[in-house]
Structure formats: structure tokens, C-alpha cells
């Protein structure tokens, strides 16, 4: 009898506990993709996370600004060997595939691209209260994806093109780099579609992506490809929209006047928010080591401006001492990135990606290419007059006008990450900067990526 009792207990114990469902454990403090992306609120969170990638180190926190500015002739690295030498290498055209900055640009840009792919893949299934909101979000994703690809293609040349949500990363072993032309085809298609979906700028959406942002970026893309006609028509739409205008010089980058009408697309940063995690590190990285404004020390000197450059500003130029400042030592610096009020690596300044002054200067350049120097000078004069320089009075032959446009681009857009890409698209990088090795016009792919998948072939010369 006793044995039956034991057996019964044993079976009962087994039956009570043996429960397959105990093996199904879902995290209770972390969200999982299986049950996320199911409604508008969750979709909006995903969209916010896409915007968040623009703040990453490898994108507009510090790396893309550095890539766009340091190789140019106006900025240089005061302490080139510090921080792994990654900024010094850019300045001196000796970037190595092991550079952590290069690795960050690659990784963070593709992380952003994957996030846009996730949203684009899933948003169709989700109902939004207002259909136009959904449409705007689609437009935003396409805009951000093309912006990231535009950065990648200009930095690395051919790059792998991924436009679907990645379900199984292992399937991507063996993916080769898509040709530059194919990448641009995707960028143009995305921007054209984005333009249709995006709303016109107003007070409530001015911090997001607006229609004119897609038009401006599309214009810049066409200009980069040398397609002046399409560049012009796209940029003219921005002018015609009347959503933007030049604001006084001292208001453009003022932290008290963020998201002003001149700014077409910015990556937003804020100081003292979320344990100081929403600020930009650009102030600390790029200011001269000797700058101690606001009692803050610890600036790193990776992107100071040359005294020669500072002297290009005429004394009457209102941009002098507003866009750029100078230390007693003669070292100049960009003043477009505001001094943090919290810790040195937490600047509140938004990073300006596209602004109206750039649109006008691009139009001036295009008109000059079309030999319409009068129209070109008209655009140019808008920039000059705002800076209190008066109308352009020099010779109006194509070369002279180009030289003035070039100068104004440097003075107006300094330290906004344009210079290197301007010289590249104009085919002047080698002659202006004295680069003898044509291979240095592209950065190397990260060594870790070449090692991860031999199907990715390194750029020549690295």
C-alpha cells in the first residue's frame, strides 16, 4: 500500500510542476519586438528612436561634423595625437581603417538606417488617428534614411545598400558594396517620395522634418552629382515656399532662438536633460584647449580655426565675433556651438544640417555655373548684406563670382561640416588642399567590418 502512496505523490508532484508554459519567459522590464509597434503611440516612440540616432557620436554629435570640416583648410586639430588620433588623422589625411571615428560613422549611420527600415516596414500596418501624421512620419523616415546614405556615400564611396528591415543579420554576410550611382538613385527616389509626404513648415512641426528639408537636401544631392538643372528647380521650390528667411546674424545660432526660420533641418540637442545625455559633445571636442568660457575647462582642441581664416572676416562683417571667436593666443574657434551650462560635454546647441543661407549660396553657385552672374550676385548679396558687407562690387566674370561665392560659403558656413564635401563635389579637394594621393578622397571602411565579412572590399590605398 505504502508504495502506491509514494507513487501517487510522485505523479502528483510531477503533474503539478511539469508545466511547459514555465519555459516561456518574457522580460517584464524590457520591451520585446513581438508585441511592440502595434499602435500609434508605440510607432511614435520608434520614430523618436530614429531621430535619436542623429545624435549619435558617429552621426551629428561629433563624427560627421569632423569629417566635413577637419580635412578642409580652415579648421585644424590643435592636439592631433589625442583621443586615439582620430581627429588628427582626418586633418592630416592619414586616416587608418582602425580609427574609432570611422567605425562610429559606419556603425551609427547604419543603425539609423536600420531603424528607419523598421519603421517603414511596420508603419503601414498601424492605424494613426490622423492619416497625415502617418504620412509625415513616412516622409521623415525616408528623409533621414537618405540623409544617412548621402553622408555614407560621400564619405566611403560605394556602400552596402539595405532598405528592408533586417530579420536575420546572418543573411547579410556576403553583401557587397552598391555602386555610388545606385546609392544616389535610392537617395533621390527616397527624397522625391519624402517631399510628397512631408508637411509644410509651421510652428508645431518646425523641429521635425518639413517639406523644404527634403527639397533642400534633394537640391544638394543633385548639385553634388553636378545636375545643376534639377538642383536649381528643387532649391527654387524652397525659396518659393516662403517658409524660410535669413534672420539677423546673432540670432541664427543663439540657443535662445532655436528652430528659427532660417533653419531648415537641425538635429536637436538639449543640455541638462536625461542625466546630461541629450547634449552635444561638439563644444568640448572642437574648441581650443585654452577656451574656458563659463568656467568650463576640458575642451579638447580637435577643431580650432586658423588665425589666417579669422582674418578673412572684414572688420565690418557682423559675423566676426558672432560665428567665430578668437583667443588672445590668436587661435580662433567656432562660436556656433554654445557653451554648456552643465558639464563640458553637454552643449545645448542643435546641429544645423540645412539652413536657408546654404540654399541661397547653392543657388548663387548654380546660377553662376549657368553663366547668369547677375542672378548669382543677387543671391550672394542677400548673404553679404545680412553680414553688413554691402553689395558685391567685384568683377562679375564667372571666375570672380565663383571666388566670392566660395569665400562667402567659408565665412558663412564655417564649422557646419560643409567645407570638405563642397571641395569634393567641386572636384577641387586635391588642388585646394594639396592632396597628392587620389585615394585619400574617400575614407577607409572600418577594419572591423572588413574582418567581419571579406565580401566587403576595402577602398584602394588603405
Amino acid at each position, binding site marked *: 500500500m505504502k508504495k502506491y502512496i509514494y507513487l501517487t505523490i510522485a505523479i502528483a508532484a510531477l503533474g503539478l510542476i511539469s508545466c511547459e508554459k514555465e519555459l516561456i519567459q518574457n522580460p517584464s522590464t524590457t520591451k520585446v519586438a513581438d508585441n511592440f509597434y502595434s499602435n500609434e503611440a508605440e510607432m511614435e516612440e520608434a520614430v523618436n528612436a530614429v531621430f535619436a540616432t542623429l545624435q549619435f557620436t558617429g552621426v551629428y554629435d561629433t563624427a560627421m561634423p569632423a569629417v566635413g570640416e577637419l580635412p578642409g583648410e580652415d579648421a585644424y586639430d590643435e592636439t592631433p595625437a589625442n583621443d586615439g588620433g582620430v581627429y*588628427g588623422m582626418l586633418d592630416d589625411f592619414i586616416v587608418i581603417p582602425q580609427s574609432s571615428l570611422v567605425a562610429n560613422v559606419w556603425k551609427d549611420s*547604419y543603425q539609423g538606417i536600420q531603424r528607419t527600415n523598421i519603421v517603414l516596414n511596420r508603419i503601414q500596418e498601424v492605424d494613426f488617428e490622423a492619416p497625415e501624421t502617418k504620412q509625415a512620419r513616412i516622409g521623415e523616415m525616408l528623409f533621414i534614411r537618405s540623409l544617412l546614405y548621402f553622408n555614407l556615400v560621400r564619405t566611403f564611396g560605394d556602400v552596402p545598400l539595405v532598405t528592408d528591415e533586417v530579420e536575420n543579420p546572418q543573411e547579410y554576410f556576403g553583401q557587397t558594396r552598391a555602386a555610388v550611382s545606385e546609392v544616389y538613385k535610392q537617395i533621390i527616389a527616397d527624397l522625391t517620395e519624402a517631399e510628397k509626404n512631408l508637411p509644410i513648415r509651421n510652428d508645431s512641426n518646425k523641429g521635425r522634418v518639413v517639406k523644404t528639408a527634403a527639397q533642400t537636401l534633394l537640391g544638394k544631392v543633385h548639385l553634388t552629382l553636378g545636375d545643376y538643372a534639377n538642383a536649381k528647380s528643387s532649391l527654387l521650390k524652397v525659396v518659393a515656399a516662403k517658409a524660410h528667411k535669413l534672420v539677423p546674424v546673432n540670432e541664427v545660432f543663439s540657443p535662445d532662438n532655436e528652430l528659427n526660420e532660417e533653419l531648415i533641418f537641425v538635429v536637436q540637442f538639449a543640455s541638462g536633460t536625461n542625466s546630461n545625455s541629450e547634449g552635444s559633445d561638439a563644444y568640448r571636442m572642437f574648441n581650443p584647449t585654452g577656451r574656458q568660457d563659463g568656467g568650463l575647462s576640458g575642451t579638447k582642441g580637435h577643431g580650432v580655426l586658423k588665425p589666417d581664416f579669422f582674418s578673412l572676416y572684414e572688420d565690418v562683417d557682423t559675423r566676426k565675433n558672432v560665428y567665430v571667436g578668437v583667443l588672445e593666443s590668436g587661435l580662433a574657434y567656432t562660436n556656433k556651438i554654445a557653451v554648456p551650462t552643465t558639464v563640458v560635454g553637454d552643449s545645448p546647441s542643435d546641429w544645423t544640417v540645412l539652413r536657408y543661407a546654404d540654399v541661397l549660396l547653392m543657388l548663387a553657385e548654380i546660377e553662376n555655373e549657368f553663366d547668369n552672374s547677375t542672378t548669382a550676385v543677387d543671391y550672394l548679396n542677400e548673404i553679404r548684406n545680412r553680414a553688413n558687407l554691402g553689395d558685391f562690387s567685384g568683377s562679375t566674370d564667372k571666375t570672380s563670382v565663383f571666388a566670392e561665392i566660395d569665400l562667402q560659403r567659408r565665412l558663412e558656413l564655417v564649422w557646419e561640416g560643409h567645407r570638405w564635401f563642397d571641395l569634393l563635389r567641386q572636384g577641387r579637394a586635391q588642388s585646394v588642399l594639396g592632396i597628392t594621393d587620389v585615394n585619400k578622397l574617400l575614407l577607409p571602411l572600418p577594419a572591423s567590418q572588413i574582418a567581419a565579412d571579406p565580401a566587403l572590399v576595402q577602398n584602394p590605398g588603405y
Partner: protein
Amino acid sequence: MDGLTYRFSLGGDYDSYVRDYYYPIGVGSYRTPAPRADANGEQQKQNKINYLLENTLTYDKSFGKHHLNVLGGYTFQKENTDYTRVIATGFADDNIQNIAGASAFTASADVGIWTLESYLARLQYDFDSKYLLTAAIRRDGSSRFGINNRWGNFPSIAAGWVFSRENFFPQNDIVTFGKVSASWGQTGNNQIGTYASKALVTDSNYVFGGGIAPGYITTSAPNPDLGWEVASSLNIGLDLGLFNNKLNFNMAYYKTNTKDLLLDVPVPQQTGYDNVLANIGEMENQGWEFQLSGNGFYLGDLMVGFNANLTSYENKVLALGPGQDKIATGRDQLFTTQIGRPIAEIYGYTLDGVFKTQDEIDSTPHLDGTLTGDLRVVDINNDGVIDDEDKISKGTYAPDFTYGFGINLDYKGFTMSANFIGVEGRTLLDGDLSSITESGEGFGVPNTYYFNNRYHPVNNPDGFLGQPNFGNYSNSRKILRSSVTVEENNGDYLRFRDLRLGYNFQKDLLDRIKLSGLQVYFSGNNLFTATKWRGWNPDGTSSDILTSGYNTGGNYPISKTYTIGLKITY
């Protein structure tokens, strides 16, 4: 029923910690002098409860010379980890040095639960303690794995034959015990993160107009097929007892084939991911084990005992992921795993002193940015350029063999025992040596090895390590610094693991003081390690098997201990 036993057991572990952290205002930080604007406080609390429930039913019976033991069982294990963390800021002063003194807080919580469910069956049989047979199977289900591959079945079988008990075995004084045995079995590994198979959605916030915009997005790739890593092991052994078992000898051959390795493999980053944990590939380990021990040999009043052992290792990767024949990862991608080779081979350039003149640089293949005083690299493949192709394998963390030996002596109450262990054929890469103490760059204090061997045209013209240079950040400097510390078999060592000297007081004395035993002794552990390794600990390694042998400051040096004792037995 006779011989039938039911056993129910419930066991548990409770583990809890509280960590309080305070960084006072009155202490400065990097480039920020004291007093700082604010202090940092933090409190972490974790509770972990693990319980294991076992139901087993055993039937144990002898029929004449037959002995049978059958076991069936079910076990269930569950672990619940509950963690909270509060980060506090906004301290007015250093008066209250914990989170209570703060005015702003951010809190986070993390709960993790895993379960393991197993069914077991085992049959043991022996006849006259001469023929031994064990067969078992277990079925394990782990919550950590993907929905498609939670369960694994792991059979095993073992047989032994004590041939010295056979009638035909000649009785002799030399071989007094003899056994051959063979076994084959499978085991499963589920040592991965609690939710490693799931696509987790984590936070990534933005700011719109200065206000925080909470963002969430998928940050780890899903893998519903993630399942058990299975190791199949074959063992064949021979045990001999000689001279009335005063001398014992064992030898064994083992071969383990591990399939569906749980590897955190770097994936192309255009996917948006860096690494994916997946069941990838297959590898094989094999080797021999020898052991010899003796005890109770007398030379007059001196009793002598000794032991010695040797184990050899050979590892080979048989397969990797589909279409993949090589994984290069870790520091400077120097850890290389490829088919047909051992896992995690450490690659490095072969260095040959420094360049002393510009002419030497100009006439020799060199890396970009090489200056005089920089390292000279051997152009292994003789193609006139220094590139990745010139890196060669310097070995692996897994050694060729390990060994140990020891002796114990007893002479009229004086006892002595000493044991040594050693490792041969181990290669390591040290992160700290290469980036700080031996790099010759800024931000680090050089060690004496670097100082004594650095090149200096006047003070140390024969130095073979790069000249200190705080300003050079070229290819040459950055790429070569890891190779300085990677040298074939640089992790070999022989360690004096323990020594014990004692004296046992004689019985006549003990009787007088009414004790049954009295011993004084001295013992020491890890008294010395003979090695050319310049890092902290030649046993240090990373926990990821793809970067085995990566040694960093996190790997603490091994401690040396001395003990003087008195042992009293009543």
C-alpha cells in the same frame, strides 16, 4: 516494493546585495577641480532567488552477482533576479553621503527569470563488480532558447571491465587492479543571457524643442531558432593498480565534438547590429590524460609519495556559419577563428627591432607614417609591403598541454608536501600592456620592461621597442602596439602551487598532555610562478571563447598566501 526509493528534494539559494556609492563634491574628477558642482550618489539592490526541485524514483536491487540501479526523475529549476538602481544627483553638500541627500533621481529596474526543466532516466548495471554498464538519457528544456529549439535530448552510455577480477587473470604482486572503460555521451550548454533569443526593444531618446521625446526601438536581433550547444564526448581509459595499489596509473584518451556552438559573432553592421548570438559551427577537442601516483614507499623511516599528471589538448574548428570560413574579432581583429585551425588563434606581426635611420626605412617595407625609432615589421610573405597578410598566428590561449607534479615525505613526524603545476604552449594578448605600459605613447606610465628595452639613439641604442613618441598617431604606431605583447607561448608558466611543512608530535608526548593529535605546520600557496608573461596573470582571459587569451586589468593577479598553523585534535 523492495529497493524502490522515491526522493523529493527542494533546494534553494537566496542571494542579495546592496551597493551604495557616493562621489563627494569635495573630490575632483578628470579635468574638474574640487569642489565640483554636484556629487553623485547611487544605490543598487539585487535579490536573486534560485530554487531547484527534484523528484527521483530509484530502484536498486542485487540478484546474486547482478546489481541493478534504475533511476527516473524530473527536475525543475527557476531563477528570479530582481534588480533596481537609483542614480541620485542634486546634492547640496557632502553632509548626507548617500542617495537620501539628493534632490533628483533616476531609477531603473531589471527583472530576469529563467527556467530549466529536465526529465532524466538512468540505468546502472554491474555484474560481480567486474562488468559495469551505465546508460542514461536526459531531456532538458531551457527558457533561454528560442521557441523552436527549447528542448534537447542528451543520451550517454558508459561501460567498464575490471579485468583483474577475471579468473583467467593471473594472480600476481605486480598488477593488482586493472580496468578498461569507455564512454560516450552528450551534454548541453545553455550559458547565455536570460533573454538572448528575443528581439529586445530598448530606449533611445530624442529631444523635440528641449523636451524629452521617449524613443524605443529593436536593438537586438531575434533568433527563434537559438538552441542548445551540444557536446558529444568519447572517453577511453585504462586504470592500473600496481604493487598492491601503492602505485596507480591512469591514462585516457578523449575526443569531444561540439556542435551548434553558441557564439556571439560579429555581423556586417549594415544590418544595424554588431553581433548576433547564434548556433554556429562545430569544433573538436581531443587529447590524452596521464596520471601516476604512488604512496607508502619506505626508505627506512622515510615515507615517500608522489604524483604526476599530464593532459594534452588539441582543438580544431570544423565548421562555421554558412558561407563563412573565418571570424576575426576582438582587439585590432587579431583573434582569428577559421575552419581547420584552432579556435581564437591570436595573430600578430613579427617585429624586428626599430628603424634607426631614415635610409633604413626607405629601403625596407614599412607601414605608413613610420619614423625613425618606430618598430620594424618582418615582411613575412616577402611581397614588399606590410599589410594584413604579414600577420601570422602566434598561438592560442588553449595550451598544448598542462602538467602537474608533487611529492610528499614523512620522516619521524616531520611532513613535507609540495605541488607544482604548469602550462605549456599558451599565447596571450594583453590590452593594458599594449595600450598603456608598453605603447610608448602618452596617458600611461611605462613599465620597466618598456623602459629598459625602448630605443633611444644615445641612451639605449640597442633597444628593440619603439621610441617614446607622444605625437605620432600613424598607422605604424596604432597597428603595431598589440603585436608588441603577442609572442608565441608568452603565457607559459610553472607555478609552485603549494608547500606544506609540518611536524606531528609523537604519541608519548600527546599521552602526557591528553591530546590525540598535535601538529604545527607552515603552508604557502602560489609561492612563485616562473613565466615570461609581463601582465598580471597568465591565466587571465576574456569570457568570450572567440577572444580567449585577451588579458586585461580586470583579470586580477593570483594571490600568494602563507599560513602558519597549529592543529589540535582531542
